[in-house]
């Protein structure tokens, strides 16, 4: 275990995605060299961190060769040409194992690519591999993985957050310039904050869910990790947009996200969610207050807003998400794919398969969700939770009459030690207290690495915006980034080798 604030693993590693793409496209840098460096780095350091469930080295080398060939022939290799990208292992990859970090799907390879994966590959990105997660994305520390936890590159005795901990840590460690995660209740933003990288949960429907293995369908959204706000915007722009394979995907043009980055925050109206500050650590509260000052100095107006309803989001979420999960995960029954444990009859085979294939947290949520939807309890739990969901959305709407974006802590604390919360699920659930409301409302939100605590661990600040408010959100995000404590974000430094 290395001490916090010690030498940053990967500090001499990758530069940002925009730079890599620009240099690969110009022919100055070969994609093949990027691939070799990344694969060598992962080979030497990921045994300890366990960011990846699977590294797809051969495919990465082949993709790099294709990018280099296109560059050589003068063809357009795409906006993410040669950029190494890590994929959360709940995104379907054709012919490549997709496990959701569960014994249930160990060894299963989908016959198709997720829409976001297709778009990434079409943009010239190089897929490094599939990253670790809490089983079926249920958790906030990546300790619920059936294949062992991921360690935080800032301090390997601590968790990276979750559920997209592998993706967040891969970017923080310099294994990939970009990564995709999924965010159902904070699963991108919370690990982004704990790993000192940028993470965005987009507006519900902005990014296709086709090929994202469902946890809670009405809340799930795919989003980017990056070391800079600009890179996150670039990746989001690449994967966003209507997909006819996803009925909940939005129509209309994708907002010009990368253009927003130059707009500044002059005149932007910012509200600080006062109700969240009482439940956050002093370092996290200080980061929000300092972030507000940064925005204010850059020309934004800042006020405190009272949104007590948002705190009820957590309990509504822990009824709605398990309810949907209990249905989404019913298909893992041993009949068609994945694990099968034989039994005397079909029912026994189903039961044995599910008992053996799912870990304790997944089983807990399936039981909770099944109960919530049961006859006689539906109104008291599921229907009531939906009413709370409406209240949360109304509270946001009230705030957004006065402000363009909201500022809040991303997580209640910095990265916590491995094992600190595994014995107490409710304590673990609280890690998502500040991120859940955006999922319930379908709104975008991002975590920006902003400060370091006394131990040198990164602290994130969360920017929340109304539906399709990504442009305002990114404007605030860029301003926060430029006012952040030096060294607070991902261990990437100027003058990187690549």
């Amino acid at each position, binding site marked *: 275990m290395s001490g916090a604030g010690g030498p940053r693993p990967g500090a001499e590693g990758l530069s940002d995605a925009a730079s890599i793409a620009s240099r690969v496209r110009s022919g100055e840098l070969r994609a093949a060299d990027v691939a070799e460096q990344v694969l060598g780095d992962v080979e030497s350091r990921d045994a300890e961190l366990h960011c990846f469930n699977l590294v797809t080295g051969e495919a990465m080398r082949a993709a790099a060769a294709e990018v280099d060939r296109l560059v050589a022939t003068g063809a357009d290799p795409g906006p993410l040409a040669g950029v190494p990208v890590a994929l959360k292992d709940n995104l379907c990859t054709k012919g490549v194992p997709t496990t959701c970090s569960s014994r249930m799907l160990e060894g299963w390879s*989908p016959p198709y690519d997720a829409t976001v994966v297709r778009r990434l590959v079409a943009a010239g990105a190089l897929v490094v591999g599939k990253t670790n997660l809490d089983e079926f994305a249920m958790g906030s520390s990546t300790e619920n993985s059936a294949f062992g936890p991921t360690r935080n590159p800032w301090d390997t005795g601590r968790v990276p957050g979750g559920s997209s901990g592998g993706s967040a840590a891969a970017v923080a460690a310099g294994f990939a310039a970009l990564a995709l995660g999924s965010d159902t209740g904070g699963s991108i933003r919370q690990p982004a904050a704990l790993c000192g990288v940028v993470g965005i949960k987009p507006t519900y429907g902005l990014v296709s869910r086709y090929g994202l293995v469902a946890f809670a369908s009405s809340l799930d959204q795919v989003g980017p990790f990056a070391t800079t706000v600009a890179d996150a915007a670039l990746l989001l722009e690449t994967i966003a947009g209507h997909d006819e394979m996803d009925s909940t995907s939005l129509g209309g043009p994708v907002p010009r996200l990368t253009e927003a980055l130059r707009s500044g925050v002059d005149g932007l109206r910012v509200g600080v969610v006062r109700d969240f500050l009482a439940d956050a650590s002093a370092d996290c509260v200080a980061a929000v207050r300092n972030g507000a000052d940064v925005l204010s100095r850059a020309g934004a107006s800042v006020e405190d807003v009272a949104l007590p309803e948002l705190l009820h989001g957590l309990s509504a979420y822990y009824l709605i998400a398990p309810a949907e999960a209990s249905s989404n995960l019913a298909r893992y029954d041993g009949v068609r794919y994945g694990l099968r444990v034989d039994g005397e009859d079909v029912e026994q085979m189903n039961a044995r398969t599910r008992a053996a294939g799912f870990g304790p947290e997944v089983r807990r949520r399936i039981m909770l969700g099944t109960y919530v939807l049961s006859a006689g309890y539906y109104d008291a739990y599921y229907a009531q939770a939906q009413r709370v969901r409406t209240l949360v959305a109304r509270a946001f709407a009230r705030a957004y009459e006065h402000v363009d974006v909201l500022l809040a802590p991303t997580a209640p604390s910095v990265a916590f030690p491995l094992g600190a919360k595994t014995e107490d699920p409710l304590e673990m659930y609280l890690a998502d207290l500040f991120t859940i409301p955006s999922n319930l409302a379908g709104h975008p939100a991002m975590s920006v690495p902003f400060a370091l605590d006394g131990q040198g661990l990164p602290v994130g600040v969360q920017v929340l915006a109304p539906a399709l408010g990504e442009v305002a959100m990114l404007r605030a995000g860029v301003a926060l980034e430029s006012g952040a404590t030096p060294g607070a974000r991902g261990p990437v430094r100027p003058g990187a080798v690549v």
Partner: protein
Amino acid sequence: MSGSPVAAAGDDRLAGWETVVGLEVHCELATATKLFCGCPNRFGAAPNTQVCPVCLGLPGSLPVLNRRAVELAVRVGRALHCTIRPSTFHRKNYFYPDMPKDFQISQYDEPIDVDGYLELPSGRRIGIERAHIEEDTGKTAHLGGGGRIHGADRSLVDYNRAGVPLVEIVSRPDMRGADEARAYVAELRAILVASGVSDGRMEEGSLRVDANVSVRPIGAERFGTRCEVKNLNSLRSLGRAVEHEAARQVALIETGERVVQQTRHWDEVEGRTSAMRSKEEANDYRYFPEPDLVPLAPDEAFVEAAAAGLPLMPADRRARLAALVPHEADGLLPASTADQVATTVDLGLDDLVVAAMACGADARLALARTANEAAQTPEAARRLDPQAFARLVELEASGSLSATQAKAVLAELLAGGGEPEEIARRLGYEALGSGALVDALDAVVAAHPAEWARYLAGEDKVAQLLTGQVMKATKGRANGKAVAAALAARRG
């Protein structure tokens, strides 16, 4: 709605009891592709060849609603006089190996079609509570253990049918007895085929029926406890199952026992219903709104476009045909005529009758020849030239052909087409044509001037003698009625 009791014919076990039936009919929609994916909706392909990640429910796949299926559901609603309304999809959760996702996407408390009716040939209206869209399941084959899932050694699943679009049409408990239940399904099938919604092939599973059956003493107001009988794959099974189930319930009640509300399985071979294992029906389906689909809110333009080109429904066609036939003094159709109307429409021959009438054919006779004779070969009848058919009917109506002769000519017309007059000549009925008859009459009048004078003077009984002479002159081939008519016409 009238609830006239109809006892099951020939089943005295049910004497004094009324059988109440409500039906749930699952109808496969005749779309080119499945409900939520692009796989072909085709019967009879090799197992598991019409599948994709979506209809196999693979992790990460999502449903996208088939627009054509919605259009066809709108047509069903229109044809059944339903209100077509905004609707939503729910998940019906239960574990079964033929269901790839272990839930079925179905419309639950907000179906697309509500509050309609279906009018039987008898004129009775059966209420339609709702019709909703849902996806079909795959098909399981159980090896060993008597072909049921419990006790089977192995089970094989074919997912070709998984995700095929269905509408489930739920009637109100308005049917009284097995015959009416059968008539309802036959009528519904005709409506679905006419609407272009289904091929109506029960033997291929395009229509599947579950029956809710209860009994009550004739005259009672309150419904008895009902049982749902599943696995009814033909009209015959439906009729037998309803009769058996009603008799079973009556026997229970008459021996002092109670009917327990339950789901029962119809065994076609044994000819009896049996209770499903309680485990099989103890499901709590945990319905909740399907988060992967958006609410369905067809606007008026969509509904009108979907319903455009709906042909007249059987009940409307029966009404149209009945209106063209003379009614009794009491304003009603004779029962036999109503039956002829129903048969004619059922076989799709009403257009023939209507067209023949437009050419001047006698309505009742045209209907009778269609329903009784042409109906024997409906394929040929649908190709019949209405003008030729109309002339045939007129030859009979005018007495130029006897009924027997007209039927023989019609048989020829149906077999090979042609002109009825020419066929009649070829069959030797030519002499009976009006020209030959007049010639024969002329000769008889010339040969019997005295008798003719007496007839002219009003002595009607002489007509018999004159007719006899004409019959003799035509060697008995004349039509007696036609001769009498010709005599009367000549007297003026």
